[in-house]
């Protein structure tokens, strides 16, 4: 049985557009395009909606609801080199985290081995699934040194680590954006490339100026996905009644420490449906609509925080672009593919300082309408929370498991760490706690290939 379905190499694209177009069938779905959520409304221990900034109108509004679903995707932009879009700043994770909901397994960050240098554009796994080779500068299929039984079809974490090891051994190519390896599709031929992986060819031609039918594709590992997220059960329920999360924002724990390709589609389609039904059922059962008082209060608070506070800060030495890049480079260097105690301790300390420095980030744009400097500042605020949760969760897991690779603790340690990390927000560093892993049919065994 096949473990996934395909629409060539544009599966996510077609799901997105089919869902968007089909949503137009239902008059009762009201989209609030280009509203930026700044906080959740919590009333009597339950989520009662969101406060959001209407970017076009330049106003803050409260949107009340019996049930709220977070579906904001991942947080790849906390890293410097990522396949994620610019808007993947972990907003949903930070919103839930600030409302007291724990983030689960945030140290489990997936790095994809085949990204284009410079841009971080992803070259899908299908390129290797169809038979592509990974080669070093000597033309050698170097995976024979690391994983001879699987070669290029090995899991993403092992392939990414092998790339870093080849780079350290001096067997990588060198280009304008640093070291890279070669992805070789030439032996597949034009027909197979055009039929099975057309988007790979399109992207490489457009963004590298190379034709993979005749040339090697330069690739290097980059942040791609976070297995962790807002802690939920299989129905998308969080610890806050009325608040749900689904997709990459959530951690429903189907990915453990290492997501397999296409499992994100199950998160959308399978858990998306389950979450939608659960939220609808919850809203139906809940007799009373939220009282207006909590929403009005939350709205006032956010207007003061965002418009009077953040927007009122004058631009000085500390800029949003400057602090963002510093955070991204720190995460890349100290909380990346390989990790160890002193680097993680350094990262936790530096991120704490950046949290403080954030209070001094000022703005040049004082407009209320479509102020993308303001949204960038609010996104950086969210990202700092998420980065802190990742760094502290990683520092506290003193073992290696899946994507979490500690050079100082290279072995998996089931006796002490067969458990999920929970990060809770405090006024200081996150509080780290653990919950047991629910083991059902498949018993944990040593990972062997």
């Amino acid at each position, binding site marked *: 049985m096949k473990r996934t379905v395909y629409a060539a190499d544009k599966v996510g694209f077609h799901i997105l557009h089919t869902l968007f177009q089909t949503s137009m069938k239902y008059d009762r779905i009201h989209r609030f395009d280009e509203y930026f959520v700044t906080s959740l409304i919590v009333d009597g221990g339950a989520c009662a909606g969101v406060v959001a900034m209407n970017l076009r109108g330049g106003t803050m509004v409260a949107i009340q609801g019996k049930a709220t679903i977070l579906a904001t995707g991942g947080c790849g932009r906390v890293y410097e080199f990522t396949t994620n879009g610019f808007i993947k700043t972990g907003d949903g994770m930070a919103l839930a985290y600030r409302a007291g909901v724990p983030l689960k397994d945030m140290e489990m960050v997936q790095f994809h081995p085949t990204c284009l240098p410079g841009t971080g554009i992803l070259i899908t796994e299908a390129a290797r699934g169809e038979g592509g080779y990974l080669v070093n500068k000597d033309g050698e299929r170097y995976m024979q040194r690391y994983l001879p039984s699987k070669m290029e079809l090995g899991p993403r974490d092992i392939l990414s680590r092998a790339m870093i090891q080849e780079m350290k051994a001096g067997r990588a190519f060198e280009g304008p954006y640093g070291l890279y390896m070669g992805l070789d599709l030439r032996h597949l031929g034009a027909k197979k490339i055009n039929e099975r992986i057309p988007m790979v060819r399109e992207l490489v031609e457009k963004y590298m100026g190379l034709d993979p039918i005749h040339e090697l594709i330069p690739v290097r590992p980059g942040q791609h996905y976070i297995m962790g997220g807002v802690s939920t059960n299989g129905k998308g329920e969080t610890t806050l009644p009325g608040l749900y999360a689904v997709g990459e924002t959530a951690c429903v724990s189907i990915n453990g420490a290492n997501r397999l390709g296409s499992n994100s589609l199950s998160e959308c389609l399978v858990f998306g449906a389950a979450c939608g039904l659960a939220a609808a059922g919850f809203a139906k059962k809940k007799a009373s609509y939220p009282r207006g008082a909590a929403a009005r209060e939350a709205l006032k608070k956010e207007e003061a925080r965002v418009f009077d506070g953040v927007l009122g800060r004058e631009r000085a030495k500390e800029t949003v672009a400057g602090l963002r890049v510093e955070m991204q480079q720190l995460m890349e260097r100290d909380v990346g593919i390989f990790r160890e105690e002193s680097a993680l301790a350094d990262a936790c300390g530096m991120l704490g300082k950046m949290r403080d420095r954030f209070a001094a980030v000022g703005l040049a744009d004082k407009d209320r309408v479509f102020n*993308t400097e303001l949204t960038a500042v609010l996104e950086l605020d969210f990202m700092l929370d998420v980065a802190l949760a990742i760094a502290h969760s990683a520092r506290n897991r003193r073992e290696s498991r899946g994507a979490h690779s500690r050079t100082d603790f290279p072995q998996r340690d089931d006796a002490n760490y067969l458990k999920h990390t929970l990060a809770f927000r405090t006024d200081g560093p996150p509080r780290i706690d653990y919950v047991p892993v629910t083991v059902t049919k498949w018993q944990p065994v040593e990972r062997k290939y």
Partner: protein
Amino acid sequence: MAASDVVFRVKRYRPESGGRPTFQEYTIPYRSDMVVLDGLNYIKDHIDPTLTFRWSCRMGICGSCGADVNGQPRLTCGTYVRDVHKGAVTVEPLSNFPILKDLVVDFDDFLRKLASVTPYIVRKDWGDLTKEYVQYPEDVEAYRQQSLCINCMLCYAACPVFGSSPEFVGPAASALALRYNRDTRDEGADARLARLNTRTGVWECTFVGECSVVCPKDVDPAAAIQTLKFLATMRHMRRLLMPGSSSR
């Protein structure tokens, strides 16, 4: 200006400051592999944080970064400065759309047009929803090209008919109608053709073809519109000759 610099002339419009749109010039460092979006981001991060534009994926999938570059509607993420650089690069908001701020235009009218062509599968009877609707590769091939649209709206910015008659349903929405009309699972072809056979439908198109020239995904909306004109005519003839029959 150093030899390794490039000048960006960007149209600015700030609703809260009033006045008409003006041009502002920025001199930025040039790299041979930079795209127009890289230039805009350089300005935003290093020179002028007030410059406002949409973008996200930087890989031609999200469709949000369209702008007129040297007078041509383009995705700024897929347009190399080296290809358009003639002393300066001029960046303006997409033509034919109301400007909200700087390069950000209002897309609500476009989304209403998409919605107007019933852009989803219509069936009288959905049957057993636990079973798959099987399609063969050739069935998918029939509508694959029209399904690749990323809603970037470049075709509307390029369309002179839309520019002079804003009610025209336009290229992308027409191509989307054809995408569903060609889907073997769909039964809504008749209603879509009826919608496109109106005063604001496909007959407005004078086949200039600029929409297909600027399309970054080779959706070829111009060809789609010509096909729809033929299908709408066939439907009309059939209804005259065989009242009560429907298009498929």
